[in-house]
Protein backbone atom coordinates (compact mmCIF):
# COMPACT_ATOMS: atom_id res chain seq x y z
CA UNK A 1 0.00 0.00 0.00
CA UNK A 2 2.80 2.33 0.99
CA UNK A 3 4.72 1.35 -2.11
CA UNK A 4 1.69 2.10 -4.26
CA UNK A 5 1.32 5.47 -2.64
CA UNK A 6 5.01 6.22 -3.07
CA UNK A 7 5.01 5.07 -6.65
CA UNK A 8 2.00 7.17 -7.56
CA UNK A 9 2.54 10.06 -5.21
CA UNK A 10 2.61 12.68 -7.97
CA UNK A 11 -0.55 11.46 -9.61
CA UNK A 12 -2.24 11.06 -6.27
CA UNK A 13 -1.18 14.50 -5.10
CA UNK A 14 -2.47 15.92 -8.36
CA UNK A 15 -5.76 14.16 -7.86
CA UNK A 16 -5.88 15.56 -4.34
CA UNK A 17 -5.31 19.02 -5.78
CA UNK A 18 -8.11 18.43 -8.25
CA UNK A 19 -10.44 17.33 -5.50
CA UNK A 20 -9.40 20.28 -3.39
CA UNK A 21 -10.12 22.54 -6.34
CA UNK A 22 -13.57 21.05 -6.72
CA UNK A 23 -14.16 21.55 -3.05
CA UNK A 24 -13.00 25.16 -3.21
CA UNK A 25 -15.13 25.76 -6.29
CA UNK A 26 -18.19 24.32 -4.64
CA UNK A 27 -17.59 26.27 -1.49
CA UNK A 28 -16.95 29.45 -3.43
CA UNK A 29 -20.05 28.90 -5.54
CA UNK A 30 -22.10 28.51 -2.39
CA UNK A 31 -20.54 31.62 -0.95
CA UNK A 32 -18.98 29.77 1.92
CA UNK A 33 -15.42 30.84 1.09
CA UNK A 34 -15.08 34.21 2.68
CA UNK A 35 -11.95 35.68 4.26
CA UNK A 36 -9.93 32.65 3.39
CA UNK A 37 -6.28 33.24 4.38
CA UNK A 38 -4.48 31.79 1.33
CA UNK A 39 -6.01 34.34 -0.98
CA UNK A 40 -5.04 37.12 1.36
CA UNK A 41 -1.48 35.81 1.54
CA UNK A 42 -1.18 35.49 -2.24
CA UNK A 43 -2.60 38.95 -2.71
CA UNK A 44 -0.18 40.28 -0.11
CA UNK A 45 2.70 38.72 -2.08
CA UNK A 46 1.56 39.90 -5.48
CA UNK A 47 0.18 43.31 -4.67
CA UNK A 48 3.47 45.28 -4.58
CA UNK A 49 4.66 43.52 -7.71
CA UNK A 50 1.43 44.29 -9.46
CA UNK A 51 1.49 47.90 -8.38
CA UNK A 52 5.07 48.32 -9.59
CA UNK A 53 4.30 46.55 -12.86
CA UNK A 54 1.14 48.52 -13.42
CA UNK A 55 3.02 51.75 -12.79
CA UNK A 56 5.55 50.73 -15.39
CA UNK A 57 2.81 49.70 -17.80
CA UNK A 58 1.04 53.00 -17.23
CA UNK A 59 4.28 54.81 -17.91
CA UNK A 60 4.77 52.83 -21.12
CA UNK A 61 1.17 53.48 -22.14
CA UNK A 62 1.60 57.17 -21.39
CA UNK A 63 4.77 57.25 -23.39
CA UNK A 64 3.06 55.43 -26.23
CA UNK A 65 0.07 57.77 -26.09
CA UNK A 66 2.38 60.77 -26.12
CA UNK A 67 4.22 59.32 -29.05
CA UNK A 68 0.96 58.61 -30.86
CA UNK A 69 -0.25 62.12 -30.13
CA UNK A 70 3.01 63.54 -31.40
CA UNK A 71 2.84 61.36 -34.49
CA UNK A 72 -0.75 62.53 -34.95
CA UNK A 73 0.36 66.15 -34.67
CA UNK A 74 3.10 65.49 -37.15
CA UNK A 75 0.80 63.91 -39.70
CA UNK A 76 -1.79 66.65 -39.07
CA UNK A 77 0.90 69.26 -39.53
CA UNK A 78 2.01 67.61 -42.75
CA UNK A 79 -1.58 67.43 -43.98
CA UNK A 80 -2.18 71.09 -43.13
CA UNK A 81 1.06 72.11 -44.77
CA UNK A 82 0.03 70.36 -47.97
CA UNK A 83 -3.37 72.00 -47.70
CA UNK A 84 -1.75 75.41 -47.31
CA UNK A 85 0.42 74.74 -50.34
CA UNK A 86 -2.61 73.69 -52.38
CA UNK A 87 -4.51 76.79 -51.23
CA UNK A 88 -1.51 78.96 -52.04
CA UNK A 89 -1.42 77.54 -55.57
CA UNK A 90 -5.17 78.08 -55.85
CA UNK A 91 -4.80 81.64 -54.56
CA UNK A 92 -2.07 82.33 -57.09
CA UNK A 93 -4.31 81.01 -59.83
CA UNK A 94 -7.16 83.21 -58.66
CA UNK A 95 -4.92 86.27 -58.43
CA UNK A 96 -3.61 85.51 -61.88
CA UNK A 97 -7.14 85.06 -63.21
CA UNK A 98 -8.16 88.31 -61.56
CA UNK A 99 -5.21 90.16 -63.06
CA UNK A 100 -5.89 88.66 -66.47
CA UNK A 101 -9.53 89.60 -66.14
CA UNK A 102 -8.59 93.17 -65.25
CA UNK A 103 -6.17 93.44 -68.17
CA UNK A 104 -8.66 92.03 -70.62
CA UNK A 105 -11.35 94.36 -69.34
CA UNK A 106 -9.04 97.33 -69.85
CA UNK A 107 -8.20 96.01 -73.29
CA UNK A 108 -11.88 95.67 -74.09
CA UNK A 109 -12.57 99.21 -72.92
CA UNK A 110 -9.66 100.43 -74.96
CA UNK A 111 -10.82 98.48 -77.96
CA UNK A 112 -14.10 100.34 -78.00
CA UNK A 113 -12.14 103.48 -78.87
CA UNK A 114 -10.37 101.77 -81.75
CA UNK A 115 -11.61 100.77 -85.21
CA UNK A 116 -13.77 97.66 -85.34
CA UNK A 117 -11.03 95.78 -87.11
CA UNK A 118 -8.86 95.64 -83.97
CA UNK A 119 -7.73 92.11 -83.19
CA UNK A 120 -6.92 90.89 -79.73
CA UNK A 121 -3.74 88.82 -79.53
CA UNK A 122 -1.40 87.40 -76.94
CA UNK A 123 2.35 87.61 -76.94
CA UNK A 124 3.68 84.07 -77.15
CA UNK A 125 7.40 84.74 -77.37
CA UNK A 126 9.95 87.47 -77.11
CA UNK A 127 13.02 88.12 -79.19
CA UNK A 128 15.59 85.37 -79.11
CA UNK A 129 18.35 87.86 -79.94
CA UNK A 130 19.57 90.78 -77.88
CA UNK A 131 20.10 92.69 -81.09
CA UNK A 132 16.44 92.92 -81.89
CA UNK A 133 13.49 94.04 -79.84
CA UNK A 134 10.61 92.02 -81.13
CA UNK A 135 7.92 89.60 -80.10
CA UNK A 136 5.60 87.01 -81.57
CA UNK A 137 1.82 87.13 -81.44
CA UNK A 138 -0.52 84.17 -81.48
CA UNK A 139 -2.60 85.61 -84.27
CA UNK A 140 -1.67 85.64 -87.93
CA UNK A 141 -3.05 86.25 -91.38
CA UNK A 142 -5.77 83.68 -90.78
CA UNK A 143 -7.05 85.95 -88.03
CA UNK A 144 -6.86 89.08 -90.10
CA UNK A 145 -3.46 90.34 -89.05
CA UNK A 146 -1.56 92.04 -91.84
CA UNK A 147 1.96 93.36 -92.16
CA UNK A 148 2.27 97.00 -91.09
CA UNK A 149 -0.57 96.93 -88.54
CA UNK A 150 -0.06 98.76 -85.28
CA UNK A 151 0.23 96.88 -82.04
CA UNK A 152 -1.06 98.75 -79.01
CA UNK A 153 -2.30 98.35 -75.47
CA UNK A 154 -4.36 100.64 -73.27
CA UNK A 155 -1.07 101.93 -71.88
CA UNK A 156 0.24 102.95 -75.26
CA UNK A 157 2.16 101.90 -78.31
CA UNK A 158 3.89 98.51 -78.43
CA UNK A 159 5.17 98.25 -81.97
CA UNK A 160 4.31 97.30 -85.51
CA UNK A 161 3.71 94.01 -87.30
CA UNK A 162 6.59 93.29 -89.66
CA UNK A 163 5.96 89.69 -90.68
CA UNK A 164 2.91 87.46 -90.69
CA UNK A 165 2.29 83.76 -91.02
CA UNK A 166 -1.07 82.05 -90.95
CA UNK A 167 -1.07 81.72 -87.15
CA UNK A 168 1.62 84.10 -85.91
CA UNK A 169 2.74 87.65 -86.39
CA UNK A 170 6.14 89.15 -85.67
CA UNK A 171 6.08 92.57 -84.09
CA UNK A 172 8.99 94.94 -84.05
CA UNK A 173 8.84 96.89 -80.82
CA UNK A 174 9.05 100.60 -80.32
CA UNK A 175 12.39 100.09 -78.60
CA UNK A 176 14.02 98.39 -81.59
CA UNK A 177 16.59 100.49 -83.48
CA UNK A 178 14.74 99.67 -86.70
CA UNK A 179 11.44 101.08 -85.54
CA UNK A 180 10.22 104.61 -86.06
CA UNK A 181 6.94 106.16 -84.97
CA UNK A 182 5.80 109.64 -85.78
CA UNK A 183 4.91 111.41 -82.55
CA UNK A 184 3.89 114.75 -81.12
CA UNK A 185 5.07 116.30 -77.91
CA UNK A 186 1.73 116.62 -76.18
CA UNK A 187 2.54 119.90 -74.48
CA UNK A 188 4.17 121.79 -77.40
CA UNK A 189 2.89 119.79 -80.39
CA UNK A 190 6.46 119.51 -81.66
CA UNK A 191 6.96 116.58 -83.99
CA UNK A 192 9.62 113.89 -84.05
CA UNK A 193 10.30 110.20 -84.55
CA UNK A 194 10.54 107.81 -81.65
CA UNK A 195 12.94 104.99 -82.26
CA UNK A 196 15.09 102.54 -80.38
CA UNK A 197 18.86 102.58 -80.36
CA UNK A 198 21.43 100.08 -79.26
CA UNK A 199 23.51 102.50 -77.23
CA UNK A 200 21.04 105.03 -75.79
CA UNK A 201 17.78 103.12 -75.38
CA UNK A 202 14.68 104.75 -76.87
CA UNK A 203 15.14 108.22 -78.25
CA UNK A 204 13.14 110.98 -79.86
CA UNK A 205 14.84 111.94 -83.10
CA UNK A 206 14.73 114.89 -85.39
CA UNK A 207 13.57 117.53 -82.94
CA UNK A 208 15.06 120.91 -83.70
CA UNK A 209 17.35 122.61 -81.18
CA UNK A 210 14.94 125.50 -80.99
CA UNK A 211 12.03 123.34 -79.78
CA UNK A 212 11.05 123.56 -76.14
CA UNK A 213 11.28 120.01 -74.87
CA UNK A 214 11.35 119.23 -71.16
CA UNK A 215 11.73 116.15 -69.06
CA UNK A 216 8.35 114.64 -68.32
CA UNK A 217 6.81 115.69 -71.62
CA UNK A 218 4.44 113.06 -72.93
CA UNK A 219 4.82 111.86 -76.51
CA UNK A 220 1.70 110.81 -78.37
CA UNK A 221 1.24 109.31 -81.78
CA UNK A 222 0.53 111.91 -84.44
CA UNK A 223 -1.53 109.63 -86.66
CA UNK A 224 0.03 111.09 -89.78
CA UNK A 225 2.00 107.94 -90.57
CA UNK A 226 -1.24 106.09 -91.23
CA UNK A 227 -0.13 103.23 -88.96
CA UNK A 228 -0.97 104.24 -85.41
CA UNK A 229 -4.23 105.87 -84.38
CA UNK A 230 -3.72 109.42 -83.24
CA UNK A 231 -3.30 110.22 -79.55
CA UNK A 232 -1.77 106.99 -78.25
CA UNK A 233 0.95 107.41 -75.66
CA UNK A 234 4.33 106.42 -77.02
CA UNK A 235 6.51 107.46 -74.09
CA UNK A 236 7.72 110.14 -71.76
CA UNK A 237 10.77 112.32 -72.10
CA UNK A 238 13.30 111.50 -69.40
CA UNK A 239 16.38 113.30 -70.62
CA UNK A 240 17.02 116.31 -72.90
CA UNK A 241 20.46 117.29 -74.09
CA UNK A 242 21.26 120.11 -76.51
CA UNK A 243 24.64 119.51 -78.09
CA UNK A 244 26.99 122.33 -79.13
CA UNK A 245 26.85 121.30 -82.71
CA UNK A 246 24.10 119.85 -84.84
CA UNK A 247 20.56 120.68 -85.83
CA UNK A 248 18.70 118.44 -83.44
CA UNK A 249 18.43 117.83 -79.73
CA UNK A 250 19.21 114.54 -78.06
CA UNK A 251 16.08 113.37 -76.24
CA UNK A 252 15.84 110.13 -74.29
CA UNK A 253 12.41 108.57 -73.93
CA UNK A 254 10.90 106.12 -71.52
CA UNK A 255 8.52 103.92 -73.56
CA UNK A 256 4.94 103.90 -72.36
CA UNK A 257 4.74 100.14 -72.60
CA UNK A 258 7.32 97.79 -71.21
CA UNK A 259 6.98 94.95 -73.67
CA UNK A 260 8.33 92.31 -71.28
CA UNK A 261 5.37 92.97 -69.01
CA UNK A 262 2.71 92.88 -71.69
CA UNK A 263 0.68 89.74 -72.30
CA UNK A 264 -2.28 90.81 -74.39
CA UNK A 265 -2.27 93.41 -77.14
CA UNK A 266 -4.54 94.82 -79.77
CA UNK A 267 -3.54 94.73 -83.42
CA UNK A 268 -5.03 97.71 -85.19
CA UNK A 269 -5.38 98.16 -88.93
CA UNK A 270 -3.67 101.14 -90.49
CA UNK A 271 -6.17 103.90 -90.88
CA UNK A 272 -4.97 104.71 -94.34
CA UNK A 273 -4.92 101.06 -95.31
CA UNK A 274 -1.33 101.31 -96.48
CA UNK A 275 1.30 98.89 -95.29
CA UNK A 276 4.23 100.93 -94.19
CA UNK A 277 7.61 99.97 -93.00
CA UNK A 278 8.25 100.94 -89.43
Amino acid at each position, binding site marked *: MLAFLRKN*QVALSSCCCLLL*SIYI*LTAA*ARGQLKNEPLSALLMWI*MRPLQIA*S*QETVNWIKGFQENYDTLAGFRSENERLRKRVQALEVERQKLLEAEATNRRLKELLDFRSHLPDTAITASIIANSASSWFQSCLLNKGSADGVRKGMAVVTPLGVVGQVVAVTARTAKVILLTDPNSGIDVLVQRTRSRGIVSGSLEDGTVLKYVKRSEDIQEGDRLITSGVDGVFPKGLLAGTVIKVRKQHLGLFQFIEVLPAVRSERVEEVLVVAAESGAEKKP
Partner: protein
Amino acid sequence: MRLFLLYFSVGVFLIVLQGTFLRLLPFGPVVPDLVLVLCVYLGLHHPTMGAALGSFLLGYSVDVVSSRLLGLNAFAMSLVFLSVYLSSRSIWIQNPLVTSFVVLLAALVKGAALVLLWAVFLSVEGFWLGAARYIIMEALVAALLAPVLFALLRRGQNYVEKFRVAAQ
Protein backbone atom coordinates in the same frame (compact mmCIF):
# COMPACT_ATOMS: atom_id res chain seq x y z
CA MET B 1 12.53 23.38 -1.85
CA ARG B 2 14.73 25.91 -3.62
CA LEU B 3 13.42 24.81 -6.98
CA PHE B 4 9.88 24.95 -5.65
CA LEU B 5 10.46 28.48 -4.45
CA LEU B 6 12.13 29.37 -7.74
CA TYR B 7 9.24 28.07 -9.82
CA PHE B 8 6.65 29.56 -7.52
CA SER B 9 8.41 32.93 -7.71
CA VAL B 10 8.62 32.61 -11.46
CA GLY B 11 4.93 31.69 -11.49
CA VAL B 12 3.99 34.73 -9.43
CA PHE B 13 6.13 36.87 -11.69
CA LEU B 14 4.39 35.42 -14.75
CA ILE B 15 0.97 36.08 -13.20
CA VAL B 16 1.96 39.68 -12.62
CA LEU B 17 3.26 39.87 -16.18
CA GLN B 18 0.03 38.45 -17.54
CA GLY B 19 -1.95 41.07 -15.71
CA THR B 20 0.21 43.98 -16.74
CA PHE B 21 2.91 43.89 -19.42
CA LEU B 22 1.49 41.12 -21.58
CA ARG B 23 -1.70 43.12 -21.96
CA LEU B 24 0.33 45.45 -24.14
CA LEU B 25 1.04 42.71 -26.69
CA PRO B 26 -0.96 42.85 -29.90
CA PHE B 27 -3.01 39.70 -29.28
CA GLY B 28 -6.27 41.53 -28.75
CA PRO B 29 -8.18 40.40 -25.67
CA VAL B 30 -6.16 37.20 -25.42
CA VAL B 31 -3.39 37.21 -22.83
CA PRO B 32 -0.60 34.68 -23.30
CA ASP B 33 -1.02 32.04 -20.58
CA LEU B 34 2.56 31.69 -19.43
CA VAL B 35 1.46 30.06 -16.17
CA LEU B 36 0.06 27.23 -18.23
CA VAL B 37 3.39 26.88 -20.01
CA LEU B 38 5.11 26.75 -16.62
CA CYS B 39 2.75 24.01 -15.44
CA VAL B 40 3.48 22.02 -18.59
CA TYR B 41 7.18 22.51 -17.97
CA LEU B 42 6.79 21.28 -14.39
CA GLY B 43 4.78 18.27 -15.54
CA LEU B 44 7.43 17.34 -18.06
CA HIS B 45 10.63 18.12 -16.21
CA HIS B 46 9.71 18.13 -12.51
CA PRO B 47 7.07 15.52 -11.89
CA THR B 48 7.11 15.81 -8.12
CA MET B 49 4.54 16.35 -5.40
CA GLY B 50 5.89 19.85 -4.95
CA ALA B 51 5.32 20.57 -8.61
CA ALA B 52 1.77 19.25 -8.40
CA LEU B 53 1.13 21.48 -5.41
CA GLY B 54 2.88 24.32 -7.20
CA SER B 55 0.61 23.96 -10.23
CA PHE B 56 -2.41 24.02 -7.97
CA LEU B 57 -1.11 27.09 -6.15
CA LEU B 58 -0.33 28.89 -9.37
CA GLY B 59 -3.80 28.19 -10.66
CA TYR B 60 -5.21 29.32 -7.38
CA SER B 61 -3.14 32.51 -7.56
CA VAL B 62 -4.59 33.21 -10.99
CA ASP B 63 -8.02 32.72 -9.47
CA VAL B 64 -7.18 35.09 -6.66
CA VAL B 65 -6.19 37.90 -8.96
CA SER B 66 -8.57 37.38 -11.82
CA SER B 67 -11.23 34.71 -11.55
CA ARG B 68 -14.76 35.34 -10.50
CA LEU B 69 -14.86 32.01 -8.74
CA LEU B 70 -11.95 30.59 -6.75
CA GLY B 71 -10.79 27.14 -7.81
CA LEU B 72 -11.43 27.35 -11.54
CA ASN B 73 -7.85 27.83 -12.63
CA ALA B 74 -6.56 25.77 -9.71
CA PHE B 75 -8.51 22.84 -11.08
CA ALA B 76 -7.49 23.53 -14.68
CA MET B 77 -3.78 23.85 -13.86
CA SER B 78 -3.83 20.75 -11.71
CA LEU B 79 -5.51 18.88 -14.54
CA VAL B 80 -2.94 20.16 -17.02
CA PHE B 81 -0.13 19.10 -14.75
CA LEU B 82 -1.66 15.65 -14.24
CA SER B 83 -2.30 15.19 -17.96
CA VAL B 84 1.22 16.18 -18.88
CA TYR B 85 2.67 14.07 -16.10
CA LEU B 86 0.71 10.99 -17.17
CA SER B 87 1.68 11.43 -20.79
CA SER B 88 5.25 12.55 -20.11
CA ARG B 89 6.61 9.01 -20.27
CA SER B 90 5.58 8.75 -23.88
CA ILE B 91 6.68 12.25 -24.83
CA TRP B 92 10.30 12.99 -25.57
CA ILE B 93 10.68 16.69 -26.09
CA GLN B 94 13.80 17.62 -27.92
CA ASN B 95 12.75 20.41 -30.25
CA PRO B 96 10.67 23.57 -29.99
CA LEU B 97 8.02 22.26 -32.38
CA VAL B 98 7.11 19.37 -30.08
CA THR B 99 7.18 21.76 -27.12
CA SER B 100 4.71 23.99 -28.87
CA PHE B 101 2.51 21.05 -29.76
CA VAL B 102 2.41 19.75 -26.19
CA VAL B 103 1.61 23.21 -24.88
CA LEU B 104 -1.09 23.56 -27.52
CA LEU B 105 -2.72 20.31 -26.36
CA ALA B 106 -2.34 21.31 -22.71
CA ALA B 107 -3.98 24.66 -23.45
CA LEU B 108 -6.86 22.85 -25.10
CA VAL B 109 -7.20 20.61 -22.04
CA LYS B 110 -7.19 23.63 -19.78
CA GLY B 111 -9.74 25.37 -22.00
CA ALA B 112 -11.99 22.33 -21.98
CA ALA B 113 -11.74 22.10 -18.20
CA LEU B 114 -12.56 25.76 -17.76
CA VAL B 115 -15.53 25.52 -20.11
CA LEU B 116 -16.82 22.50 -18.24
CA LEU B 117 -16.46 24.13 -14.84
CA TRP B 118 -17.90 27.35 -16.14
CA ALA B 119 -20.93 25.52 -17.42
CA VAL B 120 -21.40 23.80 -14.10
CA PHE B 121 -20.71 26.65 -11.72
CA LEU B 122 -21.26 29.80 -13.76
CA SER B 123 -23.90 29.40 -16.41
CA VAL B 124 -23.62 32.29 -18.85
CA GLU B 125 -25.75 32.64 -21.97
CA GLY B 126 -24.00 32.64 -25.34
CA PHE B 127 -20.79 31.52 -23.76
CA TRP B 128 -19.80 28.63 -25.99
CA LEU B 129 -18.86 30.40 -29.22
CA GLY B 130 -16.80 33.02 -27.45
CA ALA B 131 -15.15 30.38 -25.31
CA ALA B 132 -14.19 28.29 -28.32
CA ARG B 133 -12.57 31.29 -29.96
CA TYR B 134 -10.70 32.17 -26.78
CA ILE B 135 -9.52 28.61 -26.23
CA ILE B 136 -8.10 28.32 -29.71
CA MET B 137 -6.45 31.73 -29.69
CA GLU B 138 -5.03 31.26 -26.21
CA ALA B 139 -3.69 27.84 -27.13
CA LEU B 140 -2.01 29.19 -30.25
CA VAL B 141 -0.41 32.09 -28.44
CA ALA B 142 0.79 29.87 -25.62
CA ALA B 143 2.19 27.39 -28.12
CA LEU B 144 3.96 30.20 -29.88
CA LEU B 145 5.66 31.46 -26.74
CA ALA B 146 6.32 28.08 -25.15
CA PRO B 147 9.75 27.34 -26.69
CA VAL B 148 11.11 30.67 -25.46
CA LEU B 149 9.79 30.21 -21.95
CA PHE B 150 11.01 26.62 -21.86
CA ALA B 151 14.50 27.74 -22.83
CA LEU B 152 14.50 30.44 -20.14
CA LEU B 153 13.24 28.04 -17.47
CA ARG B 154 15.87 25.47 -18.42
CA ARG B 155 18.56 28.09 -18.13
CA GLY B 156 17.26 29.21 -14.74
CA GLN B 157 17.09 25.65 -13.57
CA ASN B 158 20.70 25.01 -14.65
CA TYR B 159 21.77 28.12 -12.81
CA VAL B 160 20.05 27.06 -9.59
CA GLU B 161 21.50 23.56 -9.79
CA LYS B 162 25.01 24.93 -10.34
CA PHE B 163 24.49 27.18 -7.36
CA ARG B 164 23.36 24.22 -5.27
CA VAL B 165 26.34 22.13 -6.31
CA ALA B 166 28.69 24.99 -5.52
CA ALA B 167 27.07 25.45 -2.12
CA GLN B 168 27.51 21.76 -1.34
